């Protein structure tokens, strides 16, 4: 944009803050300033904006008195609380302090005594008295130090004891919890064992599907639904074959609804004792439509004697 192009008033909102922040391009600034000289409206707008920004700056506040101090006090308390909790660190710190501490006075003083005496030419009895005094002083100092250390150790031990006590209490409660859990688990095991025993008993094999063809007539009536308990283990299919005479052997085939054979008995000697039992493991036959076909075998010929259909379902 050329420097002599007049500045459009509509652009004031766009540039006024950059102008006040001194981030506006210098040439653009000059153009704006020239415009201000001729446009009272823009000059007034600039003035207003400046006052507004000044007003905003004046709203800055320092924290009210006492706020900082109260928060620092809180900070101090929290730091102290955390420090108290660090028993282990405290102990290691004390150990370090004990290691780093210079050895108590008596040997040093005793060692320094004769040299000092030689330098100053003091008599031996005096030197001895002074030495003894120094030794007793040093000893008393050492005793005081030792006592304070013992107190420290005692306080740490007290904290330790308290913490051990807490730990013991927590372990005891854990043991109680485990015991009750164990009791619950044992009860569950007992219950499961009983259930298993029940399931393994012979009554699980009570016939649940009972196909009853009283005559040689082909069955073409309704398709009954046979519901079998899923936990039974086995179910059996019993054909009651009354008056099946004249056939040396009999055979039963079980077929799925779509005609695929799922089981076929061997040739059963034909008599009129009445029962032909097949035993199926549950799940061997998926739920669905089935039919059983009973054949009479004469020589090589098979004659269908009866057909029974049913829907197998599991509980």
């Amino acid at each position: 944009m050329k420097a002599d192009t007049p500045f459009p008033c509509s652009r004031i909102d766009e540039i006024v803050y950059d102008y006040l922040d001194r981030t506006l391009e210098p040439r653009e600034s000059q153009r704006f300033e020239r415009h201000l000289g001729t446009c009272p409206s823009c000059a007034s707008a600039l003035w207003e904006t400046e006052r507004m920004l000044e007003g905003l700056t004046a709203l800055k506040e320092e924290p009210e008195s006492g706020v900082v101090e109260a928060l620092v006090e809180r900070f101090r308390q929290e730091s102290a609380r955390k420090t108290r909790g660090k028993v282990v660190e405290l102990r290691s710190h004390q150990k370090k302090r004990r290691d780093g501490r210079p050895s108590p006075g008596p040997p040093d003083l005793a060692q320094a005594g004769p040299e000092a005496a030689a330098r100053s030419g003091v008599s031996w009895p005096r030197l001895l008295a002074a030495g003894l005094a120094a030794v007793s002083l040093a000893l008393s100092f050492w005793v005081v130090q030792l006592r304070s250390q013992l107190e420290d150790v005692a306080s740490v031990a007290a904290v330790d004891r308290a913490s051990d006590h807490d730990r013991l209490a927590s372990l005891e409660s854990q043991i109680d919890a485990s015991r009750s859990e164990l009791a619950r688990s044992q009860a569950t095991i007992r219950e499961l064992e009983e259930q298993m025993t029940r399931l393994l008993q012979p009554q699980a094999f009570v016939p649940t599907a009972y196909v009853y063809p009283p005559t040689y007539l082909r069955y073409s009536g309704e398709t009954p639904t046979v519901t079998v308990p899923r936990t039974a283990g086995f179910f059996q299919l019993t054909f009651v074959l009354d008056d099946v005479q004249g056939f040396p052997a009999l055979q039963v085939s079980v077929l799925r609804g779509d005609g695929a054979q799922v089981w076929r008995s061997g040739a059963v000697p034909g008599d009129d004792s009445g029962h032909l039992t097949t035993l199926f493991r549950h799940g061997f036959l998926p739920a669905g439509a089935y039919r059983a076909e009973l054949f009479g075998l004469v020589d090589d010929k098979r004659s269908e004697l009866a057909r029974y259909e049913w829907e197998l379902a599991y509980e």
Partner: protein
Amino acid sequence: MNGKPIARVEPDPDRQSGGTGAEKHPVLALAGNGEEAFANRVRELHGPLLQTAVSYLRNRDAAEEVVQETWIAAIRGLSGFKGKSSFRSWIFVILLNHTKQKLKGERRRKQLLGSALKDGRVETDPVTTAVSQHGAPSSHFTPERLFLAGESGEALRNALATLPAKQQAVLRLRDIEGYTPKEVCSSLGLTPGAERVLHSRARSRLRRLLGPYLKKRVR
């Protein structure tokens, strides 16, 4: 993340050399021992935190309460602060969470009071009145009222209170606290583009609101 340890306040050289030399508090990343560094942090961040809380809560007392809660939560959680972000960003996150919780509580209270009023159980309740005013500030303040507010500070405060929360927070941090755009972004979790738009809209709106008042003062 902003690499500078402090928002905009340069460390005070007097405070920095206060007997502790170049030692720095490990968590607060500021010169001085723990308490001194913490006090500096409070002096530096209390104002910006309060400005932000006021923007969202539109109530000075509630904002002060939230800032206080924020500091206490920060003190408690200081050992968990690993210094991965700046301390300022970290404490602003705490503040914004506390503010949200406070707003939720306010909203619930307002709903309860509103339904009670509808049922005719509460005839006039000063709290309800206050809440309803906080809920609709923009219709409450008009340029005339701003003018009638008298002192310029008061007028400005009233005008500021009418701005939407985010615009207000950005404007307060930028123009009252003197934060840089980058500092505002990291404190309020804004993108630079959003910050720019919010700031510009807030300034235009505020000037429009203050226009009649400022003109009056010029003449």
